[in-house]
């Protein structure tokens, strides 16, 4: 099929038609296959945002790595944050292949991050002031990530799907790591339970925001395009409902509360009914005006700048070695 699309006698429209036919047949697209600019563009946006989010996502947990309370936890959280960096690496490589024909590199992505052009997930702009936050991030933020990533396992873009297969396997491990921290606190002293309750309360709005604003019947052109290209298959609200289904009963079961007295499952519509978070605030957060946005960006950009001499040295050594 692919060979036919590349035949030069096809017009752009005919190529697009053939491409969409491949998508419809459930074929998977590889990095070297012909693809329309819009497809490439959506993938770059999605995957670079995902990759950078993994890397920025290492920072809130990084705060707790040196402080983890036992030798076992110290080892586990180091391994976990290392995995996140590894996921970032894996995804940036997928994005790099897509960007190569446009002449863009990883360095461009980093610079886009520092200038605010490349956004990262809302959750990683938030403060993580206690050890319980590290647990909640592992349990619920990673839990939310598993839900969105599981949807994308069937993405039409094969390199992304392959990366996600590996990532999802590790994320499940992370969610267990987070759950284990959370359960230990939940079964612990009154002070430990209080620390955990405060973290759940603190993270709740961010967790709802994680999936993006509800569609309320109006799907954005981006979303529509991503669904047409089978880059994604579910809406924000469908993903959020899956999250609520899985985690709200567990939170209640452990005897914790949510900062939303109205939340309930509506049998008639098969939907969770919940108080909307402040979507204006969400916009501000992802724009880089969240409580820890500036701090974490500074940490990343400073370390990047201060180690430039190292990357220069590697390049220079590589050139000499020929």
């Amino acid at each position, binding site marked *: 099929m692919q060979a036919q699309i590349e035949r030069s006698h096809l017009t752009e429209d005919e190529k697009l038609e053939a491409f969409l036919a491949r998508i419809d047949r459930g074929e998977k697209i590889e990095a070297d296959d012909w693809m329309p600019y819009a497809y490439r563009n959506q993938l770059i946006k999605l995957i670079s945002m995902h990759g950078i989010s993994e890397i920025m996502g290492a920072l809130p947990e990084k705060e707790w790595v040196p402080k983890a309370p036992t030798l076992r936890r*110290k080892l586990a959280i180091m391994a976990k944050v290392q995995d996140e960096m590894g996921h970032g690496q894996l995804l940036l490589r997928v994005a790099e292949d897509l960007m190569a024909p446009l002449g863009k590199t990883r360095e461009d992505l980093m610079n886009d991050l520092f200038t605010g052009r490349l956004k990262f997930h809302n959750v990683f702009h938030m403060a993580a002031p206690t050890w319980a936050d590290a647990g909640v991030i592992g349990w619920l933020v990673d839990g939310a990530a598993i839900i969105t990533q599981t949807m994308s396992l069937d993405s039409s873009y094969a390199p992304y799907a392959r990366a996600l297969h590996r990532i999802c396997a590790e994320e499940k491990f992370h969610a267990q790591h987070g759950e284990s921290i959370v359960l230990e606190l939940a079964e612990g002293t009154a002070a*430990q339970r209080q620390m955990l309750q405060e973290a759940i309360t603190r993270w709740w709005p961010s967790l709802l925001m994680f999936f993006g604003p509800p569609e309320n019947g109006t799907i954005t052109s981006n979303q529509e395009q991503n669904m047409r290209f089978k880059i994604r298959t579910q809406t924000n609200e469908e993903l959020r409902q899956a999250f609520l289904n899985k985690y709200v009963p567990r939170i209640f079961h452990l005897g914790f509360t949510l900062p939303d007295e109205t939340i309930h499952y509506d049998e008639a519509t098969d939907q969770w009914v919940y108080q909307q978070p402040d979507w204006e605030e969400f916009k501000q957060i992802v724009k880089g005006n969240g409580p820890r946005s500036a701090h974490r960006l500074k*940490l990343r950009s400073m370390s990047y700048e201060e180690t430039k001499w190292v990357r*220069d*040295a590697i390049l220079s050594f590589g050139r000499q070695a020929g």
Partner: protein
Amino acid sequence: MGDMSRVETVEQAKQNQEYVQALMDLLFQLADDDFILAYRGSEWLGLAPHIEEDVAFSSMSQDMMGHAAMFYEMLEELGVGKADDLAQLREAKAFRNAILVERKNGIGEYNDDPHYDWAYSIVRNYVYGLHKLVRLEALINSSFAPLALVSRKMLTEHRYHLMHWQVWLKQLANSTDTARQKVEAAIAKVWADAGELSDLGPKAESIVRFGLIAGEDLLKQKWLTKTKEVFKGAGLEWPGEPGKPQERGRAGEHTADLVSALETLSEVYRIDPAASW
């Protein structure tokens, strides 16, 4: 007293108080060195020069922290205390690590304005790693069989770490002028402390007499020979006899850097050490 030339179990070791005291002191040196340097490594997380290195460095810090945990567990079996308590509740003066491993990675705190020195980290890890290699090789012949056994296991992992640091040193020393200068400055800084690595502490005499590990001079000579080879291979000038810091870490004398590191690494555990975390 019994024959202490080959001690198979903790119970057997406990038959001789002097033997146990010497063994404990050595185990604290081994555990604390790895624990504190792994902690310094963990502070780099998210800040390494590129993402691939971030992943690799973190993996090596975990191995090292894992080695520390094994030594602390051995101390736990000897009845010294819970491994987690030993790692996190002792005061600085009870730590037996060399000063070299406790020095900060650079100016600033790991989460607040860290201006970390990559060249120093490379050189410190490599110089320490070469010494650790010599130490582990010597421990294979330790009179305390459980220690000989774990050391053999650690050696396999450790050799991979050394290859990693070797590549870094060679690259940085033979690339740009800036990198070369930074490496040379880092060597000077590391070398001022490195002489303490082979110090076996106030109990050195009994540690060696009981055959727990080879003597200080032998460890030092083997380590210097290996380091010389490495420096030569990287085209670096030999810095001469290594210096010793003002404080003697092996005797429990430490800098403010260790005190603040201990405060950070035990912050959560100290909220309630009796609780389960």
